[in-house]
């Protein structure tokens, strides 16, 4: 309970953001129970109806309840986001840390990383999805690949900083093996920056996933996701402007909460963290 106090004192807005994040995750987990209607149930009679008591966000072109679709979409988006972040963080960290061990390895790996980073994120993800066919898993793989280099870069930068310090030299002088140095000395110092970075990467990944879904590269219809609901909404802007409101707002609030929470984490762990910042333009293309 003390941690709540500390969070609240450090950054009130960030704490509220954290609560919202937990709330969204819960909504995703309990989507089946919380959704007022069946997100797949179509009804020609009821299509394109404005928000009402029965349908809080109105109905879409096929008469499906938009609110339920958004609630179920939470599940998909969160799942993709979570897996992509997990994959890219684990692999990126391993790459970033291991390249500290050898100068040559470091140069080679970082050059490869540079090449991968020379393509805007969405661009690369889209190309990968094009070649593998649109599906939930393709998006996960594509996003993982896109964010591995970015994580690797940051981890590597920090790891090298620490490697050059005297206490690592001391450890080596005592005869510590490379693995030990990595685990005991480098990783614990990299860890706080990594945690904060994960939050921001998650925000970026959600933006990327919704954009990909919007472009039609995500999970195909009729599965709802925040992005593809808006893609349908685009075609009915004159008749049904409310369709764009619900998913857009939800995406915005969630990503914003992640960013605010990331700021809170950074303040709590080390306000002077360099190189780790909210959804950078580089990553968020």
């Amino acid at each position, binding site marked *: 309970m003390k941690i709540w106090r500390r969070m609240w004192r450090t950054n009130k*807005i960030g704490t509220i953001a954290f609560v919202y994040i937990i709330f969204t995750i819960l909504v995703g987990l309990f989507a089946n129970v919380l959704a007022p209607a069946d997100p797949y149930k179509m009804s020609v009679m009821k299509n394109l109806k404005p928000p009402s008591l029965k349908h809080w966000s109105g109905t879409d072109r096929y008469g499906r309840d938009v609110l339920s679709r958004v609630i179920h979409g939470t599940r998909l988006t969160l799942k993709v986001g979570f897996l992509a972040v997990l994959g890219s963080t684990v692999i990126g960290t391993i790459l970033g840390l291991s390249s500290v061990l050898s100068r040559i390895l470091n140069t080679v790996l970082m*050059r*490869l990383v*540079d*090449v*991968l980073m*020379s*393509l*805007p*994120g*969405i*661009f690369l993800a*889209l*190309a*990968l*999805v*094009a*070649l*593998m*066919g649109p599906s939930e898993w393709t998006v996960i793989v594509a996003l993982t690949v896109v964010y591995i280099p970015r994580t690797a870069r940051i981890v590597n930068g920090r790891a090298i900083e620490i490697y050059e310090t005297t206490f690592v030299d001391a450890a080596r002088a005592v005869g510590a093996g490379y693995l030990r140095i990595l685990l005991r000395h480098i990783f614990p110092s990299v860890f706080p920056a990594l945690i904060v970075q994960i939050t921001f990467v998650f*925000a970026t990944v959600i*933006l990327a996933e*919704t*954009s990909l879904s*919007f*472009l*039609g*590269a995500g999970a195909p219809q009729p599965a709802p996701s925040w*992005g593809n609901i*808006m893609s349908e*909404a*685009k075609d009915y*802007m*004159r008749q049904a*402007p409310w369709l*764009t409101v619900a998913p*857009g707002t939800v*995406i*915005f609030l969630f*990503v*914003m909460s*992640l*960013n*605010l929470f990331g*700021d809170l984490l950074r303040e709590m762990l080390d306000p002077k963290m360099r190189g780790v*910042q*909210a*959804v*950078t*333009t*580089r990553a*968020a*293309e």
Partner: protein
Amino acid sequence: MGNFIIRRLLMLPISLFLLIVFSFAIIHVTPGDPAAILLGEFATQDQINELREELGFNKPLHVQFYEWFGQVVQGNFGQSLIMKEPVVDILARCIPRTAWLAVIATLISAIIGIPFGVYAALKRGSLLDRIFMVLTTSFMSIPIFVLALNLMLIFSVQLEWLPVAGYVSPLVDPVEGLKSLILPSLSISSMSMAYLARMARSSMLETMHQEYVTTARSKGLAENVVIWKHIFRPAAIPVATSLGMVLGSLLGGTIISETVFVVPGIGKLMYDAVLWRDYIILQALIIFVGSTYYTINLLVDILYAYINPQISYE
């Protein structure tokens, strides 16, 4: 510093080569047969085999790469499978449109973002600063397509001030051209605007606490002079170099913005290539976009090294 520049320039051909390798690898290494994907679900095995033969897929991989590499080096990116036009021509047509978007978006981001950042730094800790932080975070949290659709909803559908979609070249008709470009540019610029604003703010804050600023003040200089000549000038350097980064990243945003507003530039070309599975355009785009982005960053790094003599190589 010369050392640094030479090292970076030497890296350029290597990186370009890696990019070409990557553009080849991504097509042939990913699961799925490009020929089969091109022809769609209902193609027969014979049709697929025929296409594979035609496109040279049955040759050994290194032979294919050798041919591809030779082609690229000569500037021939092949012919688009769907549009039956040399890719180079298609690119030449699309680049200017995206260039317009990118330039306008960068201008908007810089002109609005930087002054706000500077002002927030000067009023640090105040309510204004707090609002600034929340505002920039929200600008960074809006997906481009959400912003694009909402702008379209307000300005094109409800108010009917601006066209819903389409592109008119500003060279042909400046007024109509600008009207067709302003919404797409605005959509892309929100994230970079926030980023530049934050960069400006943190850069100003770092400079403000330097000793030479205190010295300037104690010399009795007017506060105005202190702010402009001694704080803003050096603070502007990292901001100027991040402008380069911003320009590069706008390229990605154009995919969505151009698709929503139907501007036939590089972004929309990318989307269409994905839609039609035209992998030849994809390959060319990977090389083109990648090298542009890389070159811009390279120039920015060199510029930064030139301005700031303390940086050698990492």
